[in-house]
């Protein structure tokens, strides 16, 4: 039985408090109206020096009027971007942590269905990591509702003004309309959470039963979940991530998003396992279990890279204007995060986790794990920010404190779930094999 250490509990509360304060500051310091932006831009202009003024003096009056209209449009644009910034920061962190726990849940379901002989000793850890799904999806759902009720401009297709002048979005409004969109969200979140709750219940009931009925139930349930998951995941990625760019489309996007949070989920499982092991709670977990998790981290990292590159290269190669803008904005405005994440998510884990011995050494696995998680946060950042905040995006107070808040909440929920039941399931048919797993 695991007891939630008071130190970790304090840490999670500190993270949440700092996070809330930072998020609050982010919303407070966002410009309230166009005038704020005007003064901000003026201050910036005077900073840049007076070289412009001489050049603009030669302009004719007509051009000046045109420039004024352009300037007004620009100010309005910047205003919307800056207003979106704290919202987008919250949105990225919220969806990232929720999907991490979903990734862990999917990994758990796969282990059940594959009848893996090595992983049953880790089932409770996986259930712990995926337990964040419920609070995470509630907060996420509230964020979706707030977007739907026009508290922010994350999804431009929700703006009637925009849609009225945009034939492309009008053409998609049969799919991209708020009621249908929010109903889909409800359906997906309900499916995922139901599976998690039922599967956990069956797993605990299996501990107390005399036969394998609950194990078999879980097997069927997991198989059903995986089928529903892959459909819902694909649509989810269009709804919650792709639709911030309603003018762009990509066929392998769902897979790409899946690979991103699947590897993050596995990494989180591995890191929580290593933490519990270091505190002496998982006596049945040996270095071979860690080795297997590291292999998954390694393999799925490469899989993510494969999809990242395939999506990028196909669009770069054919260079069709309506598709390529997506990468053009990312390369021009988000160059470092866009290419930096390939280093974080591919090169670093590839070179550290390729070695068999390294896959068993806790400090190396944890280092690689932190790099992978940071890298996949950046991945989600690069998916959301360019179309919501654009040139005004930066990793500042809003972004960091949103991550800290959800990290604190994640730690709190995960470890309090872990402390509720024994960490080793009692009578899983593969338990003995798993305890003696050796690679």
């Amino acid at each position, binding site marked *: 039985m695991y007891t939630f250490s008071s130190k970790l509990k304090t840490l999670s509360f500190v993270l949440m408090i700092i996070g809330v304060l930072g998020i609050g500051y982010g919303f407070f310091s966002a410009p309230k109206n166009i005038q704020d932006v005007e003064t901000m831009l003026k201050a910036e202009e005077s900073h840049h020096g007076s070289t412009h003024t001489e050049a603009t003096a030669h302009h004719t009056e007509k051009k000046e009027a045109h420039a004024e209209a352009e300037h007004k449009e620009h100010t309005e644009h910047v205003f919307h971007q800056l207003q979106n910034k704290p919202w987008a920061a919250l949105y990225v962190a919220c969806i990232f942590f929720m999907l991490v726990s979903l990734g862990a849940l999917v990994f758990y379901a796969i282990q059940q269905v594959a009848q893996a002989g090595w992983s049953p000793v880790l089932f409770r850890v996986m259930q712990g990591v995926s337990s964040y799904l419920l609070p995470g999806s509630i907060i996420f759902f509230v964020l979706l509702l707030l977007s739907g009720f026009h508290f922010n401009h994350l999804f431009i297709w929700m703006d009637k003004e925009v849609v009225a002048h945009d034939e492309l979005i009008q053409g998609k409004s049969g799919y991209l309309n708020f009621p249908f969109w929010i109903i889909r969200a409800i359906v997906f979140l309900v499916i995922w959470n139901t599976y998690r709750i039922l599967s956990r219940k069956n797993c605990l009931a299996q501990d107390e039963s005399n036969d394998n009925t609950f194990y078999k139930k879980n097997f069927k349930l997991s198989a059903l979940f995986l089928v529903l998951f892959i459909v819902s995941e694909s649509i989810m990625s269009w709804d919650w991530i792709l639709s911030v760019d309603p003018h762009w489309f990509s066929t392998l996007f769902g897979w790409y998003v899946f690979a991103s949070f699947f590897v993050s989920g596995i990494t989180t499982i591995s890191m929580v396992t290593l933490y519990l092991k270091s505190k002496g709670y998982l006596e049945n977990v040996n270095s071979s279990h860690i080795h297997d998790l590291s292999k998954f981290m390694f393999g799925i990292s490469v899989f993510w890279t494969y999809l990242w590159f395939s999506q*990028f290269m196909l669009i770069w190669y054919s260079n069709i204007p309506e598709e390529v803008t997506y990468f053009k904005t990312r390369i021009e405005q988000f160059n470092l995060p866009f290419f930096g994440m390939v280093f974080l998510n591919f090169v670093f884990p590839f070179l550290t986790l390729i070695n068999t011995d390294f896959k068993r050494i806790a400090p190396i696995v944890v280092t690689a794990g932190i790099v992978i998680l940071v890298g996949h946060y950046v991945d989600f950042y690069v998916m959301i920010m360019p179309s919501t905040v654009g040139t005004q995006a930066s990793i500042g107070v809003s972004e960091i404190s949103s991550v800290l808040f959800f990290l604190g909440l994640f730690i709190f929920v995960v470890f309090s779930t872990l402390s509720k039941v024994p960490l080793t399931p009692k009578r899983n048919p593969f338990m003995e094999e798993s305890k003696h797993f050796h690679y």
Partner: protein
Amino acid sequence: MSSTVVHALYNDDDILMDAVKKTRAAHHHIEEVFTPFPVHGLDKAMGLAPTRLAICAFIYGAYGLGFATWLMWNIMINPSGGWPQDIGGKPSFSYLQNMPAFVPVMFEMTVFHAAHLMVITFYMRSKLWPFKKAENPDVRTTDDHFLMEVAVKNNVEELTSFLQNTGAVEVKVVEKH
């Protein structure tokens, strides 16, 4: 120069594993073990050093990547010696600019070199080639028997009786040339 060795034959891999451990504990030198299939853990029981083939493969892969880069640069980009032409608007001004198009080649070349050179290394290190004379001391070892070859230090009698006691179904004293 000829030397004397003892061949102990076993018909079960568990008995073989025990025998190997006992023989090592008694400080007899095991020259070789012949088995019809891989016996899990035998190398550890014999105290064999781990293989370094994977390290070789990594180096070969790195070489393959370098080779592919060199090749593509010299053909597609290099302004003096290559043909940096405009093919369908692809930017051939620098390697980096056109790199996505080269990645499939770079990947395949990496895998190709890592795989093939490692296999060839394996053949060379284990001395395998098409007209190689088989070094099988007893035909049964390819079917259902396990054979442990132990070097004789001084007392043949003692060694044979020791090996009999490890569960061998047959113990032979062999003169090797």
